[in-house]
């Protein structure tokens, strides 16, 4: 039985995939197993180092089950109980449909309630949020070694001496990793620093082989940027049409190893990820609603993807976010805290490692409400680091101020300063792909005429591949008949948008297939749209043809239409009249209703009848309706 919580979880596809990814597809080649007494103290004498350099024979059953539960929920519908298969006593059974309905209703009520209480608390308390994101750069080499970056290779197969912190090994900065980092900083409107430096951030953890992470703490390579968020980016209504969030800095740093927990006492480590280049983007604490914070991260991800800086988004673990949250009572004297030059704020807490947009929003709401509850009961908010578990309703304390880690930042004595030339920056500026906001403007402009609802997914789907495909279809449509006027072109572009997004999208969803531009070549889709637009085929025929191509028929469209006899041979007026009369004879009552009560909507039923009885693919709905109106209402 599904708890409301589970449903909430199921709603977010991001969770499903990130869960699945935690499990490496292949058994680790070198697995390092050791006890983690820092996290889970165990009495002396428990097994340690049981199978160092070997791997566990079995997967922990409980985790595996949990994983299956998560992955199967959203994709497959719950098994429909059939009357014969019932083994449960009848009294215990609630029909599934009814059960789901009840739960949906409860959820809706819950949401409404939440919205109301949110609204009420917002009038009293002002929330302030700053965001930090870590994004994996799209590079072939690691930041400080020549080992290849990989997300899917055999664990521990791409590891250099320095990645494992072997004594005597030294870092070798890979200059090529700078290019995506610079593209990101430029896309985020930052000032690129001519000289920046690398520092060591010290802490002991099993995913950190050298005992420190190399990052840019004192002198990051980019500062003072900003990101603009628009209403269509999903910002909170109270933020209006647009808000600007300033970016304090962007820094280059190393990723850590990937650890995989095998409770109670084993961790597997995959060092392929060690030293994968990351950028950390830190915004100013200028966000005041949870929705806008989530929108900000979503937008940052879209920008980073559009400029080719990053590999994958949040849903695939390529991007992680931390948020800092503080509140203050409206209309009261400003708080005593200041962060990044913004004064008058309340004591803030940090929530680490949020892995979906929904988690960001939910965690901020929960943390804000916790802080309100603390302050309203006369308590004091402690500066601490907190965690968030997906599906939970409360953030949990990870470590307090007294337990705060002193990272002992130290300039790395082995790594020379990073000197970035003006020429490189301006060259990258010139070759930067169009920003998402500009794409929205173009696609919704007169040239393409798409709605904002269509333009957004077109840009964001499949990491830009869908948009590229769309452009190919439009280009093909233009090339079939060169010299069309602007109105025709815009109409074609709009139609193409509909087909790329909805018709093709529908086929993909139904077949549960991932995006691939080769399933239906752009030229084929263009031919279908072209024939439809020139009324050489009907809408249903067009859909049918598309499905056939989708199934793997690779004949050119004109040939297929010819061979399969799909081209529209228009019916004569006599044929339409005959069809209409046959249909009308079936339901004289309804005709009376249409006539007497002017229930024009019922005309559709007759159109349907005509389509069904007429020769397949030849009855054009508008013409059928025209004839019906004439016969029933006496209008031409």
């Amino acid at each position, binding site marked *: 039985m599904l708890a409301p919580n589970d449903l909430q979880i199921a709603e977010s596809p991001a969770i499903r995939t990130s869960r699945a990814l935690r499990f490496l597809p292949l058994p680790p080649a070198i697995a*390092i197993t*050791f*006890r*983690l*007494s*820092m996290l889970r*103290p*165990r009495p*002396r004498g*428990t097994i*340690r*180092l049981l199978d160092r350099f070997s791997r566990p024979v079995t997967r922990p059953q409980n985790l595996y089950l949990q994983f299956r539960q998560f992955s199967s929920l959203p994709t497959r519908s719950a098994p429909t109980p059939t009357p014969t298969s019932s083994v449960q006593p009848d009294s215990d059974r609630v029909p599934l449909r009814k059960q789901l309905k009840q739960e949906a209703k409860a959820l809706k009520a819950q949401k409404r309630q939440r919205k109301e209480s949110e609204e009420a608390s917002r009038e009293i308390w002002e929330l302030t949020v700053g965001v930090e994101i870590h994004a994996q750069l799209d590079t072939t080499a690691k930041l400080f070694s020549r080992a290849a970056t990989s997300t899917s290779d055999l664990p521990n197969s791409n590891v250099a*001496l320095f990645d*494992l*912190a*072997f*004594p*005597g*090994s*030294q*870092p*070798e*900065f890979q200059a090529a990793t700078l290019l995506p980092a610079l593209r990101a900083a430029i896309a985020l409107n930052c000032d690129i620093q001519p000289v920046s430096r690398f520092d*060591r951030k*010290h802490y*002991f*953890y*099993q995913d950190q*082989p*050298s*005992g*420190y992470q190399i990052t840019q703490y004192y002198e990051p390579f980019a500062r003072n940027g900003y990101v603009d968020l628009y209403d269509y980016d999903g910002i909170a209504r109270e933020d209006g049409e647009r808000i600007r969030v300033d970016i304090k800095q962007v820094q280059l740093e190393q990723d850590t190893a990937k650890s995989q927990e095998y409770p109670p006492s084993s961790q597997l480590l995959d060092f392929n990820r060690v030293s994968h280049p990351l950028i950390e983007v830190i915004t100013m604490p200028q966000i005041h609603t949870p929705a806008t914070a989530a929108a900000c991260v979503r937008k940052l991800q879209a920008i980073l993807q559009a400029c080719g800086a990053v590999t994958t988004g949040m849903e695939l673990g390529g991007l992680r976010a931390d948020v800092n949250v503080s509140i203050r009572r409206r209309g009261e004297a400003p708080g005593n805290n200041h962060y990044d030059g913004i004064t008058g704020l309340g004591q803030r807490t940090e929530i680490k490692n949020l892995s979906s947009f929904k988690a960001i929003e939910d965690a901020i709401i929960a943390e804000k409400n916790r802080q309100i509850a603390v302050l309203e009961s006369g308590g004091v908010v402690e500066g601490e680091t907190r965690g968030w578990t997906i599906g939970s309703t409360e953030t949990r304390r990870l470590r307090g101020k007294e*337990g705060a880690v*002193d990272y*002992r*930042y*130290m300039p790395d*004595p*082995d*790594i*020379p300063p990073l000197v970035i030339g003006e020429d490189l920056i301006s060259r990258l500026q010139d070759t930067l792909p169009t920003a998402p906001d500009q794409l929205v403007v173009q696609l919704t402009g007169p040239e393409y005429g798409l709605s904002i609802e269509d333009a957004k997914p077109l840009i964001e789907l499949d990491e830009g591949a869908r948009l590229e495909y769309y452009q190919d279809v439009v280009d093909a449509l233009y090339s079939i008949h060169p010299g069309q006027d602007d109105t025709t072109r815009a109409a074609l572009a709009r139609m193409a948008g509909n087909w790329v997004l909805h018709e093709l999208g529908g086929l993909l969803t139904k077949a549960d297939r991932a995006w691939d531009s080769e399933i239906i070549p752009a030229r084929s889709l263009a031919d279908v749209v072209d024939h439809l637009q020139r009324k050489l085929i009907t809408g249903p025929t067009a859909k049918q043809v598309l499905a056939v191509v989708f199934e793997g028929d690779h004949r050119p469209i004109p040939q297929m239409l010819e061979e399969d006899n799909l081209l529209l041979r228009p019916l004569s007026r006599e044929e339409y009249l005959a069809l209409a009369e046959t249909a009308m004879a079936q339901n004289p009552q309804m005709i009376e209703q249409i006539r007497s009560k002017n229930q024009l909507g019922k005309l559709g039923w007759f159109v349907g009848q005509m389509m069904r009885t007429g020769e397949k693919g030849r009855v054009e709905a508008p013409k059928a309706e025209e004839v019906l109106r004439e016969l029933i209402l006496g209008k031409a």
Partner: protein
Amino acid sequence: MSLLREAERCLANQHAHNLNAFITPLSRSGKWLDRVKEADQRSEKGTPKSAIDGRLISIKDNICTRQLPTTCASGILDKFTSPFNATVVEQLEGAGAVIAGKTNLDEFGMGSHSVHSRFGPVKNLRRDSAGQEISAGGSSGGSAVAVAAEQCYAAIGTDTGGSVRLPAAYTGTVGFKPSYGLISRWGVVAYANSLDTVGILGTNTSSVRNIFSILNHHDPRDPTSLSKSSRSRILAQLQNSPLSTRLTSKPLRIGVPLEYNISELTPSVRTAWLLSLAHLQKQGHTIHPVSLPTTKHALSAYYVLAPAEASSNLAKYDGVRYGTRGDGPDGNGQADGVLYSNTRGTGFGSEVQRRILLGTFSLSADSMDNYFIQAQRVRRLVQRDFNAVFSAQHPLFDAQAVDPASVGAGASAGAEVDVIVCPTAPSSPPRLSDLTSESGQSSPLDAYVNDVFTVPASLAGLPAISVPVTVAESSRDSGADIDELAGIQVVGQYGDDELVMSVGELLAGNRLGEQ
């Protein structure tokens, strides 16, 4: 003597003496014998690979070798063998040399007497006048003793704050620390990266020079290795200027830093210093007092910076990917306990733990500004002191960036010199018993004072050599009737390595004070 006979004699010496110079000595048989025989054949034909073809060269055990373990004299690496060779090892083997074994040291290079070793202290071949065992110096004590006891032709050490020069002075060998960045550190286990240099120990300056010429090359794997273009620029600067005639046609201007005449200087060392200066003067060179005012802060700065870097560099030793794990659970069993505390607590020796704690403290948020940052400032001032007294400009120092107010400031105005000559250590080697016994008189701080003359050149990255001089019995007023040995140090401007070795050669091995 054939190379083979020389090698066999070294091998015999390695096994004859009980000096604990080696952690891993040369095996009695093996491929190396064939390699020496081949070198002998090349030598007969007059086609040796290099000046060290077929010679046995010892390697300090904090330099990685694929064939032999690399323990750093630490419990945490006591069974560790590196999967790769250090660049210097590759270079030496490429030149035909044979690795003579891995020498003992202070754990990870931290120490001045080679007593902080998991494998026991190194013993000096010499004894004091009372016949007591004395310190071999550190941290490259094993390398120095191996050279002094003829257990190898020459040895490679590392010098972070004097770790090659001090043992050279204590053992009567030549110890050379080149300019920072000339010899590759790839494969050299880091103690304090910004100070670490590979140094060379030999019985005379010519063997040191031969080895230096083989190691003095750019290495792309070491990010701090001086680039090829900088090397040729420095060479051009030295050859195409008045500097090129130094020592050949022009007498040298020798600097004597007034601040080095400290109260801790023992009379015998002071005598050796004076006689060395007199010896140089007799050869036509001129002596000039210079001032290095920041010297008195240099030692403190060094003992802030080196431990800070060490605490960072040694964070990698957790016993997870390599190295030796402690027994029992990883942490200390406390809920918020520190990961790996057990492994690190049992693996590291007391001096290493002391410096890790020191470094961790000086890098912590509350003391960073007062210690680490201050020490970096002092380091800059030390560099400025040297630049103010040397006639040669620092080749990597942007002349435009020199603060005009600082130029010519201090007592050294107008007293520009070619090299500085001073003692290597303020006193003769202490007794091992004083250093190792629990109730010993010496505290860690006493040991640190031995580095007072060697640390400034390390902070400034300058070339420095320690050469042995003998003070004749007749010129000393002490009652002892044996000659006293002392190490005299020559320090030069960055890149002036050849000049430093040449001046060292003028002094090395001289018996001074005879009428």
